């Protein structure tokens, strides 16, 4: 390992020599490892893509900034994600599911209502029962560390998948036949394609000159876990409050994950409150229908913003997940969009691989971009509109949306349409999202 690092560092030093004559170009640094794909970012999206591609015979190196042990620690990420039905099917198809099955909480019902803190929810509300569209749940609530651990176990079983951490892909150098990834520890990797799964503030996206569009919501998302006396029966409840949506999502046992949106200033104050006062604020919103409620474990908060990348591809570079798009958490779709990117990109790359096309083939990347970009922009716009409609306390707007909710509740086809969207089973689906193998 030490030798590798030194070798890589020496090669980097070569690169900074003054450029010689064009007849004898600077020799490229000798790569230390070669793979079909280098994935920058080993989060849930990056690692799922790695597992999908490696299972189909592509060689993959995943580079992540955090040491693996840190990522699996509860203090690193105590959040939970709503994984929609289609994405659950993909996790099953990829063999990841058995490693998390016992810790995934099915979402059996979804209830959407309007309200104000300290009062009972409006009597006009929407109720979705999973039985109306089939016998499978809408999705599952999975704690991020549980999903990460399951992905890590799958990754460890695959011979073609190598993880490098802690390290960062500092820059990539795309050539006509391959691309070089320069790592923070001095190593250089050679690949046919680099996947930027490096998150919202993607360094590789910026370096590729890909602009993003969007705006801040002036809202902060707070995440906390609560325990309650009585079982939640698999009910996900989204309550629209003037400051923003307040969602309680069922975890295993008598626990729920809260995703709570507030204006920045109030959220900051809430984050500072001692536990007892914070719990009082939760109770004013959560209500007492499940008996005594209190928070457990740490709280997290982050500023909410919409951002959509103009392009998803550059020569030998492709964006997935938060590097490509970030949306309002109002519909619980952020990770699901990322996993839909994974399903589409894995299918495009694996189909191409089986035709003898290399992973960096620009035609393949273009197909991925066409497939995913519209879907992501649409959901970005829809969630933006929902947030604007519901984060509002004007009486006429309140009345209109209550009537709207009640109308959707009464119109069967419209309601089924929303439910299919919630479970992510709409549109031209990649095979993995239909639960089929690649």
């Amino acid at each position, binding site marked *: 390992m030490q030798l590798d690092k030194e070798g890589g560092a020496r090669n980097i030093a070569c690169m900074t020599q003054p450029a010689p004559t064009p007849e004898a170009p600077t020799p490229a640094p000798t790569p230390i490892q070669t793979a079909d794909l280098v994935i920058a970012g080993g989060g849930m999206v990056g690692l799922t893509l790695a597992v999908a591609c490696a299972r189909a015979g592509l060689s993959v190196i995943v580079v992540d900034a955090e040491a693996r042990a840190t990522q699996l620690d509860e203090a690193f990420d105590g959040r939970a994600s709503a994984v929609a039905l289609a994405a659950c099917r993909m996790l099953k198809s990829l063999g990841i599911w058995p490693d998390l099955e016992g810790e995934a909480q099915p979402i059996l019902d979804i209830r959407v209502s309007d309200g104000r803190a300290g009062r009972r929810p409006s009597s006009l509300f929407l109720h979705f029962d999973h039985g109306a569209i089939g016998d499978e749940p809408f999705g599952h609530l999975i704690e991020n560390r549980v999903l990460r651990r399951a992905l890590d176990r799958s990754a460890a079983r695959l011979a073609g998948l190598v993880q490098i951490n802690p390290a960062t892909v500092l820059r990539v150098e795309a050539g*006509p*036949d391959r691309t070089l990834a320069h790592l923070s520890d001095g190593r250089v990797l050679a690949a046919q394609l680099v996947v930027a799964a490096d998150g919202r503030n993607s360094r590789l996206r910026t370096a590729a000159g890909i602009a993003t569009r969007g705006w801040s919501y002036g809202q902060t998302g707070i995440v906390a876990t609560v325990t309650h006396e009585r079982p939640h029966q698999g009910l996900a409840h989204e309550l629209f409050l003037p400051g923003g949506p307040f969602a309680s999502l069922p975890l295993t046992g008598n626990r729920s994950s809260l995703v709570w949106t507030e204006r920045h200033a109030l959220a900051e104050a809430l984050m500072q409150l001692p536990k007892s006062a914070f719990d009082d604020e939760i109770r004013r919103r959560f209500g007492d229908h499940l008996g005594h409620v209190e928070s457990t474990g740490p709280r997290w908060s982050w500023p909410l913003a919409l951002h959509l990348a103009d392009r998803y591809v550059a020569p030998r570079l492709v964006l997935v997940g938060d590097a490509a798009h970030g949306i309002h958490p109002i519909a619980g779709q952020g990770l699901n969009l990322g996993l839909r990117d994974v399903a589409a990109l894995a299918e495009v790359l694996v189909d191409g691989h089986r035709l003898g*096309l290399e992973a960096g083939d620009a*035609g393949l990347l273009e197909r991925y971009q066409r497939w995913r970009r519209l879907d992501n922009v649409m959901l970005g716009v829809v969630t933006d509109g929902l947030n604007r409609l519901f984060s509002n306390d004007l009486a006429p707007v309140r009345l209109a949306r209550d009537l709207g909710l009640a109308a959707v509740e009464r119109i069967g086809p419209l309601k089924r349409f929303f439910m299919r969207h919630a479970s992510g089973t709409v549109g031209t689906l990649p095979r993995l999202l239909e639960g089929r193998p690649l």
Partner: protein
Amino acid sequence: MTAQSTTVDPSEIARFSAIADEWWDPNGKFKPLHRFNPTRLEYIRDRVATHFGRDPRSAQPLAGLRLLDIGCGGGLLSEPMARLGASVVGADAAERNVKTAAVHADRAGLAIDYRHTTAEALAAAGEQFDVVLNMEVVEHVADIGLFMNACAAMVKPGGLMLVATLNRTPKAFALAIVGAEYVLGWLPRGTHTWSKFVKPGELDSALTAGGLSRVEFQGVSFDPLADRWRLTGDLGVNYMALATRPA
């Protein structure tokens, strides 16, 4: 995989690298061919794998098969065939194409035997192949009968030949010449001459004369909505033929 020696003079590498980049730019001069490539690759892979009893989804379904890509151009078919395991000979009558293809394969680390030669010369030298790919060539040759005879002679008993070409129909004139060359500008004007397009019946006769038996014709059409090529039952414009030499 290491590249084997090629006919390329190192001093020419820079010049042919530039041409290779042109051939391999999916949005450049050869964009229509890049668009078409996945569709024909899938057809070739599936038919060849089925014929030789392989699983088309396996890592190297063409492993161990000796394959000739006649009129290989920049190597758009030869390289994927090599990745799928075939031992590939790429032949082109244009020296520039062969050198370009060799430089690109070398950079990609693929062992492909590119030769600046003709089908007639290869056949005369007694070359034999499990698979002969004859894609988008017949509509450019001077004498179809001679050319097809030479190609057919190189198919081993039990082997396969795949042909892709354009049909001599009014529809092909409208789409492949007026549409692709003049209206859409997909191809340089003069790329194709309608009178040289080949009717399926004529292709069939040429295959039979060469001792091959035709297994099927397969139409290929461009779907403008999906921006993709698809296999269809319509032989009116682009079509492919699959033929075998009885064992």
